[in-house]
């Protein structure tokens, strides 16, 4: 996504925020309601995002180089694996439970990012999942769900 696209997204999001904020009670000047501050923030956001959009269009017209979110091909896979592992952890934790999810999470990341064997990654996953559950849930009292093992 180029600078123009990013600026347009920011402007649209700011407009949407302002529109939603306008729906809250504004109250009066002497007794402001819950909508006053969000409306002020929304107006500020629209103003700044508008200025950014104008600047982006002017800059691109002048053919200036702008930073982008381009990722080299090999790196893209590692980023995708990391984000997928994080999303998988969030999705699976409530029903699969911490020990199983932590094992899968650590095994996947060590196996895919480390370039070593899967057996070593799985062994490390087992160790980390067990040790971290003991540390956080048993010693520190964090109520981590047991899920499938519960």
């Amino acid at each position: 996504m180029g600078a123009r696209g990013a600026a347009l997204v920011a402007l649209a999001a700011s407009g949407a925020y302002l529109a939603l904020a306008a729906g809250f009670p504004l109250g009066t000047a002497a007794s402001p309601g819950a909508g006053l501050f969000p409306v002020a923030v929304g107006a500020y956001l629209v103003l700044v995002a508008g200025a950014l959009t104008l600047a982006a269009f002017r800059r691109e017209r002048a053919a200036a180089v702008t930073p982008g979110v381009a990722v080299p091909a090999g790196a893209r896979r590692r980023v995708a694996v990391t984000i997928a592992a994080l999303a998988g952890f969030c999705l699976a934790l409530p029903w699969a439970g911490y020990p199983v999810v932590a094992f899968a999470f650590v095994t996947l990341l060590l196996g895919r990012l480390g370039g070593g064997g899967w057996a070593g990654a799985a062994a490390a996953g087992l160790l980390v999942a067990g040790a971290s559950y003991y540390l956080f849930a048993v010693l520190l009292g964090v109520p981590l769900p047991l899920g499938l093992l519960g």
Partner: protein
Amino acid sequence: MGPVEGLVYGFGVALAPANLLACFVGVLIGTVVGVLPGIGPIGAMALLIPSTFALSPATALIMLAGIYYGAMYGGSTTSILVNVPGEAASVVTTLDGYQMARRGRAGAALTVAAMGSFVAGSLGVVGIVLSASWLADQALRFGPPEYFALSAMGLAILSRLSGGAVRMSLLMVGLGLALGTVGMEPISGVRRFTFGVLQLAQGIELVPVIMGLYGVAEVIVLAEEGLRKADLARVRLRELFPTREEWGRSAMPIARGSVVGFVAGLVPGPAAVLSTFVSYALERRVSKTPERFGHGAIEGVAGPEAANNGATAGAMVPLLSLGIPFAPATAILLGALVIHGVQPGPLLMVQRPEVFWGVVASMYIGNLFLLVLNVPLVGVFVSILRLPQHVLSTLVLLLCLVGAYSLNNSPLDLWVLVGMGIVGWAFRKLAIDPAPLIVALVLGPFMENTLRQTLFMAHGDWRLLVLRPLSLALLLVGVLVLAAPPVVAALRRTRRAA
């Protein structure tokens, strides 16, 4: 309680076994995260907030503050030995520190850096005691309009001084303020931007936002860069002692760096980073042999290393005396205070003296710990760099996930963490500094409160914000900081064209 009695009382608090242990653990973690490139003190502090729930407020803050200033010590180690700054505030140290290491003077550079940090940290404690007491007295005269104006001014200065384009920083401020409006409005109970999600009624937690933007984003960046292996220089114990000439050359830069750093810390913005550049430029300017800079001049290590520690002390002043954070790290400390039920502000010194004076005194003790940890044990910390990066990254992610979940036992915090991690990674690619977002997120609810109180006070008359002299002055400073540079540039262009 006067400053001297306060400091004596503070040492009593800080020397209690639990606080002493918290201080040691904090500076130890700070040194480790400072040594490790990528995992900074901000992410580490956010990560450890949940682990402080069982501690007293003073103990929690002593530990978290220890991470903050401890990271400045650790950051210099990798700058000097590996030419990789562990922290942004140690970038300048690579210029001469690594050149010294190449000439076999790594030990001397490390010792001078640690001593400079110790002196600046110790002088910073004196600075906090003197300025925070005075500022807190003055702040007792502040009303809601002044607090609103001060927060607005702080955000304006932060936008101007943060990395990247000013427009982008201003957008980050807006984004932070907008995130701060999510949840149940405290006065009328109206639910704002919750979209029917019950858990959003409590608002967006600061901790997963910070852990996402700094911790998770950093790990994604490291994953993208692939595996790296650090090439470590070896340091022998006998090389740790600087020569008499090196000490002589370092003394004044340390003194100047301490002052530059402390003053920079008082100003909103990335003070620790800025102060090192200012200190380096200053040392180069006052040197009779400026050509040595960049080729292993010890002044180029001593000044900036003192400055970044002085800045961490200076940054504590607005937090402890006004209850207003001007940087992400102090925003986390404020968040931690609020979580522990402590109301920061000018009355902190009176109502919770054990927190105020205990933290201030602990900074002196922490600096002593750091001096001992960082000079003879430097080899131990450097060996941490040998830990494979993918193992470290995986463990950091797991800690972030458990830390975020433990806040409310809610999957929503996990999604905020991951979402902010992806946003933070995109910010890095677009060269956007998320610091204004964090500070605005913390200050947002406070600004809303003070704005509404101002309007109540003035019976709806907005002009009260500009009718009170102090409030007007603070707002004018903010406007000037934002408007002056483009106006001056436009005038110059007009003059040149004419």
